[in-house]
């Protein structure tokens, strides 16, 4: 068979439009402090770190098949790591953030060897148990206020800036940058050769091994990156809330249940899904904020309906119907160009 010339393309019209839209969103986010109030900025900070956590959990469960219910372990370690670095070791906060992330990564390595001995449901429960053990350990440490927790010393906060407005600006931009950077990281990863391996593992783990993909290495990388992202979010949470308790730092509801909800609703196994899911989650939360227990009941009901009726979430419905990819991770072959 004679094959004419061909070309492998990485972007489509939809993806170019998507990229333009994405740039517009980034510009809008940069301009927010100029026109919005403190409440909006605080909301966007929270949106940013939920987006980062959702992207991380999507890599774990949506691609590597690692259904973790224990990401709060690394969020919590990030929280306490940041407290230790700043309040106890007197490290400047903006230096303490990257140091905390590195420390969380170092702790994550041995936990990986424990967790990777488990598969499927056992892995899920194992990661949860690990997080609970860490939570209980921190309730025992008197230096951190045990179960009642501790506040971030005021000098740490003042160290960022004496000026409250500047402080809030720094926190806002750091958080938003981390949200955007996480999306970008996941996109570039999926687009690369390693992304081909990750996507293959998502679609058929057995077959991925048969074509030469080292699944264990890829999974370990995902596990560690997800831990680093969670640790980073943990450090930011302390800066934002200025106070930490073991229950809040290692909260399974905040850092696992909500994040799993976001990814399931938005669409597991795509870059777009967690973005859509984060938006849906925060819209629902603001709509249902006044209804107390009904808030969680409604979230749960929506999650169940989506899982049954649209297993690939909101983005799955849109993406498969219109074949749209805002993030062009696919390769398209154009044949017979001459």
């Amino acid at each position, binding site marked *: *068979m004679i*094959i004419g010339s*061909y070309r*492998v393309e990485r972007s489509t019209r939809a993806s170019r439009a998507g990229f333009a839209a994405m740039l517009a969103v980034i510009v809008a986010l940069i301009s927010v402090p100029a026109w919005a109030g403190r409440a909006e900025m605080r909301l966007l900070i929270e949106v940013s770190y939920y987006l980062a956590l959702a992207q991380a959990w999507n890599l774990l469960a949506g691609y590597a098949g690692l259904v973790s219910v224990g990401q709060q372990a690394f969020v919590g370690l990030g929280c306490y790591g940041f407290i230790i670095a700043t309040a106890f070791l007197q490290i400047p906060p903006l230096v303490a953030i990257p140091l905390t992330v590195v420390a969380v990564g170092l702790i994550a390595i041995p936990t990986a060897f424990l967790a990777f001995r488990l598969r499927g449901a056992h892995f899920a429960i194992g990661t949860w148990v690990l997080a609970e053990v860490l939570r209980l350990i921190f309730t025992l440490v008197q230096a951190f206020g045990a179960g009642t927790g501790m506040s971030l010393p005021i000098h740490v906060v003042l160290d960022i800036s004496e000026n409250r407005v500047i402080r809030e600006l720094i926190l806002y931009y750091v958080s938003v940058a981390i949200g955007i950077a996480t999306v970008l990281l996941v996109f570039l990863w999926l687009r690369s*050769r390693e992304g*081909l*391996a990750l*996507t*293959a593992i*998502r*679609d*058929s783990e*057995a*077959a*991925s*091994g*048969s*074509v*030469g*993909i*080292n*699944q*264990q290495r890829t999974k370990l990388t995902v596990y560690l990156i997800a831990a680093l992202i969670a640790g980073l979010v943990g450090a930011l949470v302390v800066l934002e809330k200025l106070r930490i308790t073991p229950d809040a730092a290692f909260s399974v509801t905040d850092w696992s249940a909500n994040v799993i909800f976001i990814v399931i609703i938005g669409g597991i*196994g795509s870059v777009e899904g967690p973005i859509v899911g984060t938006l849906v989650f925060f819209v629902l939360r603001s709509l249902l904020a006044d209804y107390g227990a009904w808030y969680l009941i409604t979230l749960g009901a929506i999650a169940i309906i989506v899982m049954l009726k649209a297993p690939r979430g909101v983005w799955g419905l849109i993406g498969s119907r219109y074949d749209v990819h805002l993030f062009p991770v*696919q*390769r*398209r*072959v154009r*044949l017979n160009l001459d």
Partner: protein
Amino acid sequence: MATLLSVERVSKSFGAVRAVDNLSFELDQGEALGILGPNGAGKSTLFNLISGDIRPSAGLIRLRQREITHLPSYERCRLGIGRSYQIPQPFGRMTVFENVLAAASFSSGRGESACYDLCIEILGRAGLLDKCNRAADTLTLLERKRLELARALATQPTLLLLDEIAGGLTEGECHELIEVINALRGTGVSIVWIEHVVHVLLAVVDRLLVINFGKFLAEGEPHAVMANAAVQEVYMGIEAE
């Protein structure tokens, strides 16, 4: 001829079931071996043991004298074992091209763009070029089987394990498949082929092995094996055409 693959007293149990029971055989370089047997005889389990998808309960597997019994499947692929799955296992949400590209790139350790030519050529041979941008899970069963073969070929194997790729093909397609496989043999690729479509198998293989209940029933020159009374009984009158 040098021995390529040797399976030595290999067993695999699932609970109380001995799916593969103390099997031994060798495959020479360039040889094509057919494996026959009723459903549940342990044929696919044997493939999974050779490709590394599962580990044996007992016994050794060697490739070019090197023991590979406990190597993970990706390393065996890089050593030259390529396989297709009986129930196709496409990377469903990747395109057909990406399926083959992943195989070409990770089996060889080469960068993506260095594999493009090979992928296009293989997709052309497999008759999938016009569908190369389709998500693999939109393919028909027959196309998925072709993709299984294409993906296995993209790993550029020295030993190719084919698990029932001829089922459901028309007469013409069977001939095409026979030509593809015989051309591969011409390039020195060794083949182990599990197949129920006996006449296709007989058109390619040098030797036939019949398995029942995880054990050998018969082994040897294909037509002699098919004439064997025990084999005829197991196949209940299904004869070689």
